[in-house]
């Protein structure tokens, strides 16, 4: 049943970038155009609540002055607020002392406040939590086998059944980094929900926005035609399908080849980069070594090769025909178009 909430006139957006991250998801959002950060902040979309942004990457304020918003949120003075989490959450319980990552100092003790601590303090009060990027959603690179920090995603930390004050699970927007407009669009959807104009963003079982992560890379890839014809690249730099040199596109949920990286430009397999499955919960370990042919694709590409070659031959002949103009386009005194004049 769709959740509805009374329209919210003004909302705070608190961005916690101090998980184990590279800040690439913050940087990615500055790259979005649908909408851009200016459009969100300056209120260019009708009906949205006024958005106050507390985002370390662009904040005017510094240090304690900046942190006040977070301390206030903890005291319940910032509601309603959306918490954006960037970076994976380390396991702070596996060591005796110190911290893996922190965000500001506790005014009482002077000790650094860990990111885990911030999540414990703020998550009960948040209207919604968005996990931005694969680190925050599922652990990502920093949660790779052999990592010393015990890194995990926000749902791993808060629990997969966790619900926000508005009854929403953690909204997971994976991508390493997150595709700029995927992030901006999800945020916009959430703001429309806060405005009482839309339902909550529909999510799949891994808490991804359904409309963005329903299809596979392959289904949106403009090189899929090469696959169909069994025409595979053996070298990087080729414009053919890359599955035999490391592309995981057929089994990865992501819309990047269809959407491009920004405003339709760039991407992954569509522009010559193998899909390394950076949106997937199993990333990176289940896809390494990245440059090897995915084990499953040996069988599927072998099967498609016979059919594909046959189809390619047929098409090649049709292309050859279509590549020639009809014979009636010529100079000279004769008209051979088949036109039958009444009179000249």
């Amino acid at each position: 049943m769709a959740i509805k909430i009374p329209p919210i006139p003004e909302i705070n957006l608190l961005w916690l970038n101090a998980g184990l991250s590279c800040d690439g998801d913050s940087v990615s959002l500055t790259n979005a155009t649908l909408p851009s950060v200016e459009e969100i902040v300056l209120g260019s979309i009708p009906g949205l609540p006024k958005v106050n942004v507390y985002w370390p990457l662009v904040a005017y304020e510094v240090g304690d002055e900046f942190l006040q918003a977070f301390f206030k949120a903890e005291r319940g003075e910032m509601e309603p607020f959306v918490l954006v989490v960037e970076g994976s959450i380390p396991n702070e319980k596996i060591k005796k002392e110190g911290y893996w990552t922190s965000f500001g100092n506790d005014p009482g003790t002077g000790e650094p406040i860990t990111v885990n601590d911030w999540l414990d303090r703020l998550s009960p009060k948040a209207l919604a939590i968005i996990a931005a990027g694969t680190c925050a959603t599922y652990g990502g690179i920093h949660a790779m086998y052999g990592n010393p920090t015990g890194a995990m995603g926000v749902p791993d930390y808060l629990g997969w059944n966790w619900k926000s004050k508005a009854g929403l699970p953690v909204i997971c927007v994976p991508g390493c980094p997150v595709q700029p407009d995927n992030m901006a669009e999800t945020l916009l959807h959430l703001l429309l929900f806060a405005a009482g104009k839309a339902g909550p963003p529909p999510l799949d079982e891994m808490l991804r926005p359904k409309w963005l992560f329903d299809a596979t890379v392959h289904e949106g890839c403009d090189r899929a035609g090469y696959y169909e014809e069994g025409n595979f690249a053996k070298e990087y730099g080729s414009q053919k399908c890359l599955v035999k040199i490391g592309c995981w596109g057929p089994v990865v949920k992501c819309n990047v080849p269809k959407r491009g990286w920004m405003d339709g430009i760039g991407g992954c397999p569509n522009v010559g980069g193998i899909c390394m499955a950076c949106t997937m919960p199993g990333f990176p370990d289940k896809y390494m070594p990245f440059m090897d042919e995915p084990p499953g694709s040996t069988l599927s590409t072998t099967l498609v090769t016979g059919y594909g070659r046959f189809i390619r031959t047929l098409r090649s002949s049709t292309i050859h025909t279509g590549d020639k103009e009809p014979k009636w386009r010529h100079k000279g005194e004769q008209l051979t178009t088949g036109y039958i004049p009444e009179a000249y």
Partner: protein
Amino acid sequence: MSVRDFPATEEERGGRQLIEMAWDPITRIVGNLGIYTKIDFKQKQVAECYSTSSIFRGYSVFMRGKDPRDAHFITSRICGICGDNHASCSVYCQNMAYGVETPPMGEVIMNLGESAEYMFDHNIFQENLVGVDFCEKMVRETNPGVWEKAKNTAAPRAEQHGYRTIGEIMTALNPFDGEIYKLGLQYSRMTREMFCLMEGRHVHPSTLYPGGPGTNANPQTFTDYLVRLMRYVEWMKRCVPLHDDLFDFFYDALPGYEHVGERRVLLGCWGALNHEGECDFQYRHMTTWGRKMYVTPGIVVDGKLVTNDLVQINLGLRILLGHSYYKDWEEQGKLVDRDPIGNPVDIRHPWNARQIPAPQKRNFDGNYSWVMSPRWFDGQNYLALDTGGGPIARLWSTALSGLVDVGYVKATGNSVVITLPKGATLPEMQLEWKIPKWSNAIERDRARTYFQAYAAGIALYSIDKSLELLAKGETKTWESFKVPKEAISVGFTEAVRGVLSHHMVIRDGKIENYQPWPPTPWNANPRDSFGTPGPYEDAVQNTPIFEENGPENFKGIDIMRAVRSFDPCLPCGVHMYVGGGRTIERIHTPFAAEVVP
């Protein structure tokens, strides 16, 4: 933080009062940084400064045992604003290990991608992050007197950039509603489109591989880039004069401002943008191809070029534990005893360094950071080189070597001349970056705007090269290779904010050791084992305070300008003491007067 986090200083014992203030986290940078200082308000000077980083992720730890070909995909994730510099550096490092040479077209594509990264990243930092420190709102709050003066000071280069007074420039830098601020964001996107044409995705590229990129070298790739590049060139013709006016004004309005963020000239640049066709990635030829790079490597001490030889630069690298949360690795012994041409390699060299994390309480008498202290050993001293945020070191090193001459960009021995061709709106323009008198906050920021133009110049040259190669039918971008069982290798480049090296040791076909050393550890490191402060610490210490506010509503703007001039790129915060007496008093940075819309 507690009052006694800091070791007592001589001045303090002598009864001088220092007040502690705290900024954590520092915003408008990438990542987590902490700097703790003591300020003497009577003398209007920072007395002492400590820099700390509050994050550990463990790349060198979890990369052990992985397939070496995964290295660039993984290390790109070190940085979310210049990840592609890591990916490129790793590709260079892998190329050396695998003995593969990128085809010329591949190298040109990477140079176009990396040039776009410089154009984008410096642009967003200059106009949207550091620019705010110079905007009307900030100057009014910190130096109302300076704002009054700025409103009435005519901008000498108004004809070039269109703003009549310095005050108008400051207004245009106001966050979100200033014109330059907004244009800055827009150009940061257009340059990222250029980047994506070459490297697929920003910030973690999809098309980079050892052996060369997988990008299709067709005419559209280059013309789509060129059209956008010329729009950026027109923007640069306004931007560079605008920043010259703004920065010159600070020297005029606040005599002595040259000492803000000033430190001894100790600059490192590892060179960037390999010469297509000249770079074979072999260690034994590294001296030669290093000098062919389109940004010349070099170590500059007290204004003199110490070396521009990448082999010498490599051998002098040392990683000191300093006051960081790691255990030492010396007892584990050396992995590499000699470099590929037989030179001895030190136990503290990156090839032998290892990260053994030891999380512990922060203690300014003991260990206080997750950053180790890289140094360059000149045979006698462990030099705490900085990168000055990248551009100042690159321009200085390139200017002194005088090796770069590609038409659009020419190094003269004491300057760099950049010639931007006529565009849709403005005529040809020549810009000259001259070696400055100081390595300080203003000159680091000024060099940034010039380097944006420099990168555009190299990109114009690379587009010419790409068209030549297309005409010759040389469209191959990638060369095949085999991963050897054993190898040692190094990649050198310039990340946007300065030196970047990747060192790798391969054993049994797997990564035995992988050591990425990006610019920020060079700049943000804590005191090393010899007690030598890191560059932020050094540059902030003794910075004079020009802010008109007293301790009660002090914003620390001069310190922020000093720190941000290095273009910090790691999770950080700044804490400081301010004072005059025996009591050390804790003062939070003042609350925001208003929230940014």
